[in-house]
């Protein structure tokens, strides 16, 4: 995975996910919801990701499983970035 992408994702999570722990203590495949991210916080994460990466998630991608891990989010963002390029 692109390191810079993952670290940007982590920055967004630190600011918006309201995790019960520091996001850097979680590995890329840790379940963010189990780490305390609420559904409400996940919407803010999605909005911040759209703003940060200048992308728009299609409805088919807007589901919990897509935003469950750092790796999942980075893959989703990477996929949209590649489509835009």
């Amino acid at each position, binding site marked *: 995975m692109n390191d810079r992408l993952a670290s940007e994702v982590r920055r967004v999570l630190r600011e918006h996910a309201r995790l019960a722990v520091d996001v850097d203590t979680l590995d890329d495949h840790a379940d963010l919801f189990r780490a305390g991210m609420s559904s409400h916080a996940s919407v803010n994460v999605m909005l911040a990701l759209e703003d940060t990466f200048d992308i728009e998630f299609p409805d*088919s991608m807007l589901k919990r499983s897509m935003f469950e891990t750092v790796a999942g989010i980075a893959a989703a963002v990477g996929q949209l970035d590649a489509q835009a390029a």
Partner: protein
Amino acid sequence: MSVAVDRDQQFVAELRRIADDVAGRHAEQVDRDARFPFEAVDALREAGALSALVPAELGGGEISLAGVARGCLELGRRCAAAAMVFAMHQIQVATLARHLEAGSWFESYLGEVAGDQRLIASVTSEIGTGGDLGRSIAAVTPGEPGRLRFEKQAPTVSYGAHCDDLLTTVRRSEDAQPGDQVMVLSRGSETELEPAGTWDTIGMRGTCSPGFVVRAQFAPQQVLGFPFATVLSESLVPLSHVLWSFVWLGIATDAFERGRSFVRESARRRPGEPVPAGTRLSRVMSELTMFGAEAESALRDFLLWSEEPGRERLQTMSSVLRFNNLKLAASEQAPRICAEVLEVIGIAGYKNDSPFGVGRHLRDALSARLMVANERIHSTDAGLLMIAAKER
């Protein structure tokens, strides 16, 4: 295919019979005394209706969800409390059946539901979570050797004192976050229900839903293995909104029928003269038709999306919006229709002891806006709308 259709039709006809002959006969007393609709539930047991959604190979009726939804409507026409008990039980059974793992404890449990016609209550809401089903405070903790336990403060448990078993949401473990939940099926014999409150409400009185402190000890395999967030989005929430809506549609349908009987009777007394109430009734009919269409279309979407590989669409935010919109519309239309019928009928509709009385209908239908408060749903939707589109 046609065998399944026949089976569905027979089931709906049987539910209509139970509604007319049993549930309806006791509905006034159930409402007045705020007591459980024993007769209707016994008749449903006798008909094997409590396992309607259990697969045939486990001994169930293998009735379609559409058939069960019609059953909710039929019962709702005669006794809203019996209909809601039936709907809530079916939501639990359908949820378990949709997330069944072959050879699991839950598979043999569903066999018992079919064999013994066991009635399942749900313990989802909790004091301190503000009505958010996606969060729990109570947690699974170690119990006696080889057993687990939980203790949960539940503000309402519908028919808790009358069920056979309970399906409860709790945190996975003591150190789990509020959103890290599992469902536990505990048998009545494994569960202690300490009453904590009363159920003297304006409507839905026969659902007997006071608060309880719920304590249970159970085997580890009674914890549903499936991730709860998936269960919630793929099954529990959309199923609840669809089946509840059919119950409310049943209430509104009977209120309309009473209005229609009243208008017909007035017209017969003065043949040829205009019946102003008829025009008003016509407006009620158009609203009832829209309500029915919305419930049907939500049911169809749910069935279609359930057939898709991985049930992907049911996990999206637009799906959350879709079924939330059904709930919001249905829960507002049902009491509005009952109130409009009351004005069509006038004082005879206001009287409890009149054949045209719709007071019980109105009182029962008012619960719809509160069971998962519409304000809370609007606030969830407001958040989701920032990012997801409404399903077209």
